[in-house]
């Protein structure tokens, strides 16, 4: 009796899932995957290595692939991370919040003062990594994760302090919107989503160069940093 009502309740969800699956199947059934044979000389990777620096204005070739040639995939990755963070937050907020259990012992003096000295340095390094993503190794994702590490250290040394969860969500949403907005600039100017329309801007190797790439990496850095900070924050267990 109970099981039948459960089945009846989940029928609409099942129908919607089947509809979405059918749409995706119909969209891709015409695409012939792996049909054309590509010559070694004309392969995509050789083209990136030969022309990547001139076409994107980024001296880091990894960045020119991740943000420019495969920028749409990066948008998908950021969406996956957003869904994962949202799922963790939703799951944790259903648990009963026992304040007694999470109040651990206060951190030791060395931990508290060492953390107070190193947190600004770690956060600054994170910002450096995503600002210089088009010049040196690293980028938006790595810089954002380093910033989340600084936030984590703050949560450890000040367990009694309330944290700005609303501000984290605000930064996350603004960064995600600006990533899509920067992509729409390309769509409006040249008709290609996430096209680097001002690729020749600045001298190669300068901090202000690479066109839209540093701006996109700043958006990714802020988004990843606030998202992973939110995950750590809700795992600690005082979500509002």
């Amino acid at each position, binding site marked *: 009796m109970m099981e039948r009502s459960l089945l009846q309740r989940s029928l609409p969800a099942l129908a919607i899932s089947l509809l979405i699956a059918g749409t995706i199947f119909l969209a891709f059934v015409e695409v012939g995957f792996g049909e054309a044979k590509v010559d070694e000389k004309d392969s995509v990777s050789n083209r990136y290595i030969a022309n990547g620096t001139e076409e994107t204005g980024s001296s880091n070739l*990894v960045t020119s692939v991740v943000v420019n040639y495969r920028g749409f995939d990066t948008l998908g990755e950021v969406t996956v991370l957003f869904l994962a963070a949202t799922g963790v937050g939703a799951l944790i907020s259903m*648990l009963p919040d026992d304040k007694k*259990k*999470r109040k651990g012992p206060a951190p030791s003096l060395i931990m508290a003062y060492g953390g107070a000295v190193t947190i600004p340095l770690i956060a600054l390094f994170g910002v450096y*990594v995503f600002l210089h993503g088009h010049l040196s*190794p*690293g*980028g938006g*994702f*790595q810089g954002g*994760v*380093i910033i*989340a*590490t600084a936030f*984590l250290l703050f949560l*450890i040394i000040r367990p009694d302090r309330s944290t700005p969860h609303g501000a984290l969500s605000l930064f996350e949403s603004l960064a995600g919107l600006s990533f899509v907005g920067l992509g729409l600039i390309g769509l409006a100017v040249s008709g290609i989503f996430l096209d680097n329309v001002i690729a020749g801007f600045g001298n190669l190797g300068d901090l202000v160069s690479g066109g839209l790439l540093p701006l996109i990496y700043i958006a990714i850095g802020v988004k990843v940093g606030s998202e*992973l900070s939110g*995950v*750590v924050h809700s*795992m*600690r*267990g005082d979500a509002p």
Partner: protein
Amino acid sequence: MNSAMFLAIALLMFIIMIALAVASVRSKDLIIAAILLAGVSLIASFAFVLMRAPDVAMAEASIGSALTAIIMVYAIKRTKRFEDDDNGGGHQ
């Protein structure tokens, strides 16, 4: 760096990584197991630097050895710290 030295360092790192992973599986204390897994990630990030992938090394060092470990520790705090024995008697 000559290639023999490179090979020696790489082999040493792989042996340490395997040893840490085995110790993590065998540990009954789940917090110690999480910390040993963070050690595996730390050595793996050195290995990525050696393989000239500094981008991946940065992500591995900060995610694998900091964020993942602390998320596991928070999850262990919400459940219980010690794995049960095979005969069913828990420590706690």
